[in-house]
């Protein structure tokens, strides 16, 4: 039972000197009082950003912080917990909402272009839901592995299912509403994608894109 604050305290004291460190501790976001290893990837990123900025600004001469040390202190050396967000989809407004949510969630983990790729992929899947099924749900999941960050998409609906999936996946199908490339294009934007559909039974699409930690 160690709080994050007590885990990072010796590191920060050593690097900044106790007087400056105390000042920095006062400004840290609330999750710093939680237990080591209990934060989600997003909370870890936020806290690290805060700490690294302070270190850059206030480090004493010759007392640089070894990279990765703060992260290990916050997470206990293990990958942080995944962050999962669920969004109901029933209108074109909701498509915009998941686009924005994807951009927020990927920022800082993925590059700009990857962020656009993922937001576009999510947008395609969310639009398919409200156009063809009426309503459904999109879940976004950001998780951490020892060497990578993984963004997962789960799009689920109880709609009519996707007819002639094989023709669509071959890429020569044109729908009357889109460019007919929604699903194939989305697959190209992701590292992997799986479609599970049956007439009248709805559709489940899972996909992910990963990026190596720098």
């Amino acid at each position, binding site marked *: 039972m160690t709080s994050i604050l007590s885990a990072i305290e010796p590191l920060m004291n050593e690097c900044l000197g106790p007087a400056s460190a105390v000042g920095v501790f006062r400004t840290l976001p609330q999750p710093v009082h939680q237990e080591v290893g209990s934060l989600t990837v997003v909370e870890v990123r936020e806290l690290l950003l805060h700490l690294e900025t302070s270190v850059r600004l206030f480090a004493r001469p010759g007392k640089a912080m070894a990279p990765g040390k703060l992260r290990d202190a916050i997470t206990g050396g293990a990958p942080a917990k995944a962050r999962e967000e669920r969004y109901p989809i029933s209108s074109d407004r909701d*498509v915009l909402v998941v686009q924005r949510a994807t951009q927020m969630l990927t920022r800082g983990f993925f590059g700009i272009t990857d962020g*656009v*790729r993922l*937001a576009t992929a999510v947008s395609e899947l969310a639009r398919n839901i409200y156009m063809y099924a009426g309503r459904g749900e999109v879940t976004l999941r950001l998780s951490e592995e020892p060497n990578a960050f993984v963004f997962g998409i789960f799009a689920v609906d109880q709609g009519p299912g996707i007819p002639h999936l094989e023709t669509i996946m071959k890429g020569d199908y044109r729908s009357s509403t*889109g*460019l007919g490339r929604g699903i194939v*294009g989305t697959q190209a*934007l992701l590292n992997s994608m799986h479609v599970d559909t049956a007439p009248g039974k709805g559709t489940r699409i899972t996909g992910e894109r990963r990026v190596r930690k720098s």
Partner: protein
Amino acid sequence: MRLGHCVFVSVPAELTDSHARFLQETVSQRLSVADGVRGLVLDVSALSLIDSFAAKILGETASIARQFGVKGVLVGVRPSVAITLVELGIDLRHVETALTLELALEKLQLRIVSTDA
């Protein structure tokens, strides 16, 4: 907004599907009644992403403009958006594009104003 022989449209950042359709309709309406319009510039620099639906609407709008003898040019596609469009397999080949507004006007072979006659 109209300037000389050209109509400028700034596509808003918060573009829902119904907004996109509304925009398309409004622009078509304006072009069909406007006299002497020769160019349509669609500025998409506010869009942080263009998915297949948005691309379809933009492409259609340019095609509709052509029906009225108006040349449509797309301006301000961000680099990451361009990469994504290509990977998504969307072909905007039939739509003229330009890097900047200035180049778009050059493509349309129009000058905004020439007061000194």
